[in-house]
């Protein structure tokens, strides 16, 4: 097969067995990645399942372009039912994991059952090992990673093995746990870490040495070299500012806020200060942009995580924010939701609704740092389930500023485009799903929202990083897809596949119990035009 490998690896943890299934036929229906993983997951799992039960499954899938060298085609989708807010969730694993899984010869990986002991699944081409992982328990994620690499006999192999693992939060099955891959916290993976923990899977390590075939080598080569040079010109701004590209625009239009949206953001942290803290650029597999930023060998937060653990918690020192982010990564906590939870709890305390001494005041750096390990270990009962459950338990559901259980980190009253994005996302308020790359949109917002959501769905199905896809025209991607797989598709067919992705996610959420009304903004953020916008959007989707 060209592009795809045509194989699915099914790992049964209960019996410690694995077998390979041929899935060559029909792969082009869902493309791969998010589409394929969703299809496999929703076919095999009932929506009413408890996400932490052994019957739940985790599906990982790469797209047809992943690992081929197509610009920034590195992502691998991981789909399961979220333990955080019960919706279906699909996170995109960046860096090198996806390409390595593809090189190992698999398009998809299904993990089912529950191991009796903590295990590490090691995949090396056809070989699948279940290694005891007791030595990695309760360790910070960076230490666990280096310990794991030390356990190899061959240092080259150790360097080239890619791992996806959970930290202490995941091992304790905290709903706030996220996944970590090679030191980078996986964006939007909150609620998946706990599912890994419930199955006793500490991590997955992959190394692959197989070929990935392409159909038309010459055209493929040419279009990639063209794309690389084109992209560095086109994405000049994104290259410079990474995910902070819209920061200035957001600041000028009052989209940023402090202290749980009580106070407006008054530029206490400037973009220049943030940029000054960056040291090096890192790229994912085959990415010409390299938008990840590092300092002292640690990844720095992206804009949503930065706002959640920084200004929303009343912290404006860039180095402190980086430190909190680093500790979140070490513990395996999702920085966005953890920051939002802290911010919400601090606001509740200020209002006198929460009396607990452990909860700090806004801007109290020392106590926040002390609190993080306690949250990961689930030592504080009221905070262990996130902001939504916290507000619910205090009988103040209107105090929660988010959608479908996920917190919002931007004040969307002043950005209608972003508000509709957040509201209609199938996974709750996820900034990554609402990435719009500085572009002012005032007209026909519902149509724009739908088209960008569809584009993101296509890119995640093909295995291309959504950050880039937003600026890439569809026809260029279609020609890349054709040269790799030899399959000719037109734009309409491609968009239909994307709509199907949203329909499948929507149907799953409906079965879980989410209704049309759950697409509503919280009362405090409502503005008059919103309802008509939402109605138009629902009509466009046919819901």
């Amino acid at each position: 097969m060209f592009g795809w490998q045509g194989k699915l690896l099914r790992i049964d943890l209960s019996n410690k067995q694995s077998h390979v299934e041929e899935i060559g036929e029909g792969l082009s229906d869902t493309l791969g990645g998010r589409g394929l993983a969703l299809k496999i997951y929703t076919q095999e799992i009932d929506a009413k399942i408890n996400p932490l039960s052994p019957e739940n499954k985790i599906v990982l899938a790469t797209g047809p372009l992943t690992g081929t060298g197509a610009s920034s085609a590195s992502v691998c989708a991981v789909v399961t039912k979220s333990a955080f807010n019960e919706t279906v969730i699909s996170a995109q694993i960046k860096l090198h994991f996806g390409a390595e899984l593809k090189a190992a010869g698999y398009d998809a990986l299904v993990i089912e059952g529950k191991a009796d002991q903590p295990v590490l699944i090691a995949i090396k081409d056809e070989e699948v090992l279940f290694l005891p992982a007791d030595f990695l328990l309760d360790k910070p994620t960076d230490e666990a990673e280096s310990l794991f690499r030390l356990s190899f006999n061959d240092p080259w192999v150790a360097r080239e093995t890619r791992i996806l693992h959970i930290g202490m939060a995941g091992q304790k099955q905290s709903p706030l746990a996220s996944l970590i891959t090679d030191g980078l916290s996986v964006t939007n993976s909150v609620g998946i870490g706990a599912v890994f923990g419930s199955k006793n899977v500490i991590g997955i390590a992959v190394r692959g040495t197989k070929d990935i075939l392409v159909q038309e080598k010459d055209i493929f080569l040419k279009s990639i070299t063209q794309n690389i040079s084109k992209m560095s010109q086109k994405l000049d701004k994104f290259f410079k500012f990474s995910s902070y590209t819209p920061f200035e625009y957001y600041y000028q239009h009052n989209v940023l806020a402090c202290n749980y949206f009580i106070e407006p953001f008054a530029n206490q942290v400037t973009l220049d200060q943030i940029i000054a803290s960056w040291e090096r650029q890192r790229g994912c597999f085959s990415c010409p942009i390299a938008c990840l930023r590092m300092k002292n060998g640690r990844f720095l937060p992206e804009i949503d995580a930065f706002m959640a653990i920084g200004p929303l918690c009343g912290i404006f020192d860039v180095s402190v924010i980086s430190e909190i982010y680093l500790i979140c990564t070490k513990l395996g906590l999702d920085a966005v939701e953890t920051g939002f939870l802290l911010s919400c709890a601090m606001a509740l305390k200020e209002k006198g609704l929460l009396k607990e001494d452990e909860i700090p005041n806004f801007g109290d750096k020392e106590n926040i740092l002390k609190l993080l390990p306690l949250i990961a270990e689930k030592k504080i009962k009221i905070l262990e389930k996130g902001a939504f459950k916290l507000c619910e338990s205090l009988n103040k559901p209107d105090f929660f500023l988010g959608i479908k259980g996920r917190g919002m980190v931007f004040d969307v009253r002043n950005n209608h485009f972003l508000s509709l994005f957040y509201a209609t996302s199938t996974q709750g308020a996820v900034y990554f799903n609402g990435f719009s790359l500085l572009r002012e949109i005032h007209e026909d917002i519902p149509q724009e929202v739908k088209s960008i959501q569809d584009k993101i769905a296509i890119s995640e199905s093909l295995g291309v990083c959504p950050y880039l896809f937003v600026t890439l025209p569809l026809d260029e991607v279609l020609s890349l897809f054709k040269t790799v797989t030899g399959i000719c598709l037109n734009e309409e067919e491609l968009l239909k596949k994307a709509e199907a992705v949203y329909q499948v996610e929507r149907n799953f959420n409906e079965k879980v119990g989410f209704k049309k009304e759950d697409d509503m903004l919280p009362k405090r953020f409502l503005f008059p035009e919103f309802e008509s916008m939402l109605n138009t959007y629902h009509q466009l989707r046919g819901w």
Partner: protein
Amino acid sequence: MERIRIDHTKCTGCHYCELACSLNHLTVALNPKKARIRVLQEGTRYFPVISGPFTEAACNIKVDLVIGEKVYDFCDLCRASCPYKGIFKDPITEVPLQCDFCGIDAPGPACVKWCPSGALTLVEVPSYY
């Protein structure tokens, strides 16, 4: 004489050079594990290493070093970019792979052409030896 200059401070670790090399030599397949240039990660830095000339014949017998009770593969310690190193061998056939500048009259090495960060550049240097 043309040489590939490597600036590891610019390398972002995207592994494009490996892909370019493998696609050029395998014609229809991509496989970074069969590339003649490999990006090694040491801590937080990335070092592209090109499979250069073979080292002296005496070295190719492959020496194992014994320090204390442990046996070390000398190829892992050696800093030369010798094709005899484990990483430059084809993972299945174990044939050592060596950089050939993508052919003599080809339009330059593919890895340099693909490199988006400017870590790899082609430089003209005088030949003294």
